[in-house]
């Protein structure tokens, strides 16, 4: 292969010139966007930090979380902290009193979502969380973590539809079982406090 010295440099110059000109009319070349003015659409699968899902209107009562602490145990960087609710007699309720996630520690791995048997914890896509208060504002409390199911449906429509269907099926099965039970015993069943029926 005959190689004329200097030709390679000229080829390189031509290539950069083509990129220079191309950057003005070929939109595929400029990958950057002007961030605060324009934003990329958030991908449906995108995950950032976890959130807690509640059904209905009341974030306190509708919370799906039953405080089983599986996520706390499975969380690789140990950023979840749960304290269960106790009633007046000191009996442990199936509801978290404290549910904190330290997002300065969280590594967005989604393992808590995967291990949760109640579909109570899901991934949020909110990414503009920068703050000056490193220790306080990055510790998300239950109130900040709780998001309505509608919000979840908006963020991850496909996944949410699946979850809703699954929950509905489970609820139906449960209702059927309850009806059977009721028919059998005719006693008034106590409705569990953490019931997630909408």
């Amino acid at each position, binding site marked *: 292969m005959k190689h004329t010295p200097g030709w390679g440099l000229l080829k390189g110059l031509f290539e950069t010139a083509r990129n220079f000109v191309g950057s003005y009319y070929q939109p595929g070349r400029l990958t950057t966007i002007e961030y605060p003015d324009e934003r990329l659409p958030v991908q449906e699968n995108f995950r950032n930090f976890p959130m807690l899902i509640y059904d209905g209107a009341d974030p306190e009562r509708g919370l799906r979380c039953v405080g089983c602490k599986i996520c706390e145990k499975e969380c690789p960087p140990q950023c979840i902290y749960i304290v269960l609710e106790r009633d007046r007699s000191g009996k442990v309720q199936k509801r978290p009193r404290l549910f904190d996630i330290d997002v300065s520690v969280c590594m967005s791995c989604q393992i808590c979502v995967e291990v949760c048997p109640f579909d109570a914890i899901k991934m949020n896509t909110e990414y503009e969380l920068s703050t000056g208060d490193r220790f306080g504002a990055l*510790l998300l409390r239950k109130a900040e973590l709780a998001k309505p199911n509608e919000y979840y449906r908006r963020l991850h429509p496909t996944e949410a539809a699946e979850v809703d269907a699954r929950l509905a099926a489970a609820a139906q099965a449960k209702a059927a079982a309850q009806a059977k039970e009721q028919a059998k015993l005719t006693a008034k069943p106590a409705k569990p406090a953490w019931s997630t029926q909408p």
Partner: protein
Amino acid sequence: MSDLRPAMETLERIRTRLEAAVAGAELEVVANGAVAAQGSLRVDAAHAVAVARFLRDDAQLQLDYCSNVTGVDWLDRVVRTTVRTRRVIDGLERELEQTTEHTVPGYLEAVYHLYSVALRHGPLVLRQRTADRADGARVASLTPVWRSAEFQEREVYDLFGVVFEGHPDLRRILMWDEFRDHPMRKDYVEPDDYEYEPTPHDEVLAKARRHYAGAGGDRA
């Protein structure tokens, strides 16, 4: 998967040939309980270099490539053996359970994964065991045979405290030179002297409080 690869000799055969080739080498085939069931060959430190050289230069093996070198820490184990004996006590035959405890002393291991680039087979897992976990934690360095072991043996030395005799440059590699302990040992205790990143509800926070209370001032 493995059937496509040219097969290597069995460990037993290799052991037989090695015993013939390297006089006096103590070799043992260590079984592996996992599904992979890939056994390994344990060699004593005194003959390790000779064995390694044979493995590398033997025409049928040509294990010219040492992929992975690592250490494993086995703590002292208490082994309980329960012996049931029938003995006649007071005229009655009774079943007695006698539990004896004895401690299997812990040791450190250096594990080498060998492959052949030339013949495209492998791996052969080679192990060396130290006498104990303290002063006797010495094995032979195989860096003269495979250069690739150089940094990895240093790492094992650094993190496990295994001294590789014959290594040309045995220094700490990941930890700093002044560091005292060997952090990958199973009985390693974290020093209480670094800057904590206090996170609420964390044992780290409690630790940080304790540390800085001791140091005279609560930073968290």
